[in-house]
């Protein structure tokens, strides 16, 4: 059984506190969902989603306390998705022209 000795002491953030932050972030984004400020709400909602994801990944999954190459694994995955997204935007979103016979 791997002992916790190899984990730095500060690896026990207050989980319930973080849970509280996550739930309040959820409530804020839900509330934003019902407001009809399309662009502002969207930017805020997705920022909150990223913050929530970071909280879970860093503290619940202890990625903050892992050596660099474990963080690099996740980062490489996201980088690949970023390349894919960038490469596809001009072609899928702004398709040259959507005319032509059905």
């Amino acid at each position, binding site marked *: *059984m*791997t002992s*916790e000795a*190899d984990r730095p002491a500060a690896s*026990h953030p207050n*989980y*319930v506190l973080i*849970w509280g932050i*996550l*739930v309040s972030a*959820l409530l804020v*984004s*839900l509330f*934003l*969902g*019902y407001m009809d400020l399309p662009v502002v*709400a*969207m930017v805020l*909602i*997705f920022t909150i*989603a990223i913050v*929530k*994801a970071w909280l*879970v*990944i860093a503290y*619940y*999954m202890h990625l903050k306390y*892992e*050596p660099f*190459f*474990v963080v690099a*694994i*996740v980062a*490489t*995955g*996201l980088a*690949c*998705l970023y390349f*894919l*997204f960038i490469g*596809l*935007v001009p072609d*899928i*979103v*702004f*398709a040259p022209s959507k005319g032509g016979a059905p």
Partner: protein
Amino acid sequence: MESSRAPASASGFREATEVPTGRLGLWWFLASETVIFGGLITSYVLLRWRHPEWSSEASHTLNAAGGFNTLVLLSSSLTVVLAHEAVAHGDLPRAARHLGVTLLGGLVFLCVKAFEYSHEIAEGFTPLTSLFWSYYYGMTGLHALHVIGGMIAIAAVALGVRRGRDAQRVEYVGLYWHFVDVVWIFLFPLLYLAS
């Protein structure tokens, strides 16, 4: 020529880095899952950008149910990390109980999902209605399958922990469950709030 630093893990293998082999393998598995869900979400976001008219269809998704499901998954993330903490303190029975609560959370999530599907199908939105609904059912369906897979894994590990065996697996199944929660954290705004 440094001598071996990390203790040999349970299976008698010597670890060349300080990350236990099980956890390292699991992070690689989560990376492969990230690019699978990532590919699906990227396609959805691209088409969502191309078809602004989908936001009217997206308004038929039940924000309240989605929100509640997010709360359920966040809470089950909490209980699974408490189970991991219990294992760290050597209290296996408590860890098994936390895993039980996590399972309960998964079950509630699936029930709310089933209710949502039936409600939407009753209103006439099936996977074949339009491309938005195909993506909605495709993405939430694949996520639900991963929730079910996770619950089976948690149940198996909980049984083992109750008999005091393989307690390090609590951490691994916890990491997987957090991943399922993180995917939902992104699915929720994409499918429910973006309307």
